[in-house]
């Protein structure tokens, strides 16, 4: 029945080879990063993750301020990007005329293609003055009772960096969400209308159930980009190794410190500490991804058990 065609065998082996290459590359990256950061791992151990000093002169290194900066800027960026991204996607998929949808989609793709450095330049010359002269004074005046909006207003800092990151990751959320919403079968929407749902009730309930995993996939993709983003962030975040509750204060991210200090790192321990920062960044990305997937899985489990319970009740 199954003729052994050489073409088939070769094709299958070739595709398997490509898949294995990915594993090899990831393993290679992990191996090389660990090998180069061994001097630093041996010297600092786990305390590297909890120390706040970064002193190249006295050779005391710790990653905590950078981990804080990376996570804070990425999550604030997500907080800003998700409502805007989802809202735009829903509008494009459901409400907009075809010519608006196509034009805006094209512009969104262009936004995703703009290089990081260009975002950084735009940030320095346009965003930072606006933040320093208008937005931050406004936030400080009316919301200054919150610890997030206290302290001196430099213009550069965590909030500006988060804003730029939000602009950079919004296209990913929009593209993926739009595709997911467009892929919802018409019959679900019609069933919802038949039950008497209004337009927005129907959209929300369908999107939240049918499109959930796809949209969350897009959000995780966007989060991944935000965590690793280097150039734009390093130009806007102020590059100050400090942990502060205020969003106005400058900060530092894992990717930024590597970009800034790697070429000039003089001593071996300094270099190895920077490579260890790279390793930490890799693990932070993996960790966040894993947490997100566990979250999706647990929500799905709850949904499944909820449906089972309803079926049994019938």
């Amino acid at each position, binding site marked *: 029945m199954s003729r052994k065609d050489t073409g088939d065998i070769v094709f299958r082996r070739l595709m398997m080879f490509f898949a294995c290459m990915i594993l090899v590359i990831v393993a290679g990256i992990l191996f090389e990063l660990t090998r180069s950061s061994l001097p630093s791992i041996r010297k600092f151990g786990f305390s590297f993750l909890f120390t706040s*000093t*970064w*002193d*190249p*002169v*006295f050779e005391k290194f710790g990653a905590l301020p950078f981990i804080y900066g990376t996570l804070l800027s990425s999550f604030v960026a997500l907080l800003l990007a998700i409502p805007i991204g989802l809202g735009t996607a829903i509008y494009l998929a459901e409400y907009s005329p075809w010519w608006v949808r196509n034009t805006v989609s094209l512009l969104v793709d262009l936004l995703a293609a703009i290089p990081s450095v260009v975002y950084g330049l735009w940030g*320095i010359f346009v965003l*930072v*003055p606006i933040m*320093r002269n208008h937005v931050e004074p406004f936030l400080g005046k009316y919301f200054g009772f919150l610890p997030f909006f206290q302290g*001196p207003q*430099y*213009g*550069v800092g965590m909030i500006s960096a988060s804003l730029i990151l939000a602009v950079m990751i919004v296209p990913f959320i929009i593209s993926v969400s739009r595709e997911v919403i467009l892929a919802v079968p018409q019959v679900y929407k019609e069933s919802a209308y038949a039950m008497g749902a209004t337009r927005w009730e129907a959209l929300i309930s369908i999107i939240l159930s049918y499109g959930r995993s796809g949209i969350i996939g897009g959000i995780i993709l966007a989060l991944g980009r935000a965590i690793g983003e280097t150039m734009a962030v*390093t*130009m806007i975040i*102020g*590059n*100050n*190794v400090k942990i502060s509750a205020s969003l106005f204060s*400058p900060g*530092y991210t894992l990717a*930024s410190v590597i970009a*800034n*200090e790697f*070429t*000039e*790192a*003089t001593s071996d321990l*300094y270099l190895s500490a920077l490579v260890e920062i790279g390793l930490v960044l890799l693990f932070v990305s993996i960790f966040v991804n894993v947490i997100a997937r566990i979250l999706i899985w647990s929500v799905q489990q709850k949904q499944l058990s909820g449906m089972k319970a309803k079926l049994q009740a019938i």
Partner: protein
Amino acid sequence: MLKKISVILAALGVTATAFAAPMLINGAGATFPYPIYSKWFDVYQSINPDARFNYQSIGSGGGIKQITAGTVDFGASDGPMTDQQLADAPGRLFHIPMVMGAVVAAYNLPGVDKGLKLTPDVVADIFLGKITKWSDPRIVSVNSNRQIPDMPIIVAHRSDGSGTTFIWVDYLSNVSGEWKLKTGKGTSVNWPVGLGGKGNEGVAGIVKQTPGAIGYVELSYAIKNNLPYAFIQNKSGNFIEPTIESTSKAAAGVSIPSDFRVSIVNSPNPEAYPVSGFTWILVYKNQSDPVKGKAIVDFLKWAVHDGQQYADSLLYAPLPEDVVAMIDKKLQEIKY
């Protein structure tokens, strides 16, 4: 038979072209002197077309690393190599000073032009974070003829490792015991306060855009960006304007050791600007390739003599005469 002949002919052809091609000499290192090195390579090309120079400005730290690893023919650095780094190198490395540069304190104070007078302890305390307002009596008392606005001081420094930083913190370590103890000197330090900008351009950008900011940049960047800069009090008590002349004076009269690894910050010369430094080219004493070795030495000799005329227009300070004489003697020690 025919195959063998054609292979031999091809090999001869390749070697012939190898002989005809100009020799390529590779260097890498500091970003600060890159403009003048480019100019020199360009001009030297017409003097000696056989030698072609290629320079990658990857930073002083990179320059030191690459010359130690032997991947380049010469390195370049704004900060001298430490004894440990010299010991790690496979051969004996020479530091040859090329030009001098000044690091200035540029600021953004509405209504205050260049020439704000700052004493060394004030500069150190600003960068330590102890002086936080421009209206501090220690600043106002020395500048009684100026109207200084009451604004918070926003410090700007380099986020990347840099020779400019090295010269600046070398000066701060020299004039402030607290700075020396707490922060120390290096191409990258643990800054007590301030915003970090990438490159001289980054710091100049922060200062230009942020009212109340003060940051350190190379003199050429301050001039090109029209940034006002401070006159810092030198060791003799005079407030000196950073210029090409006052930078060159920083080396005159300072005892220069024979290996040229000297810091000339806070120079005792009464007309010297206190935050000046050399930038060096790093070459091995024993050159493995005699042709390249001769080409490098000839270029260096030309650069410290005829090349110095190009320094002014590019806003670098030329080497003083006595230093050039010492360099000539040193260059004769290079064996190729």
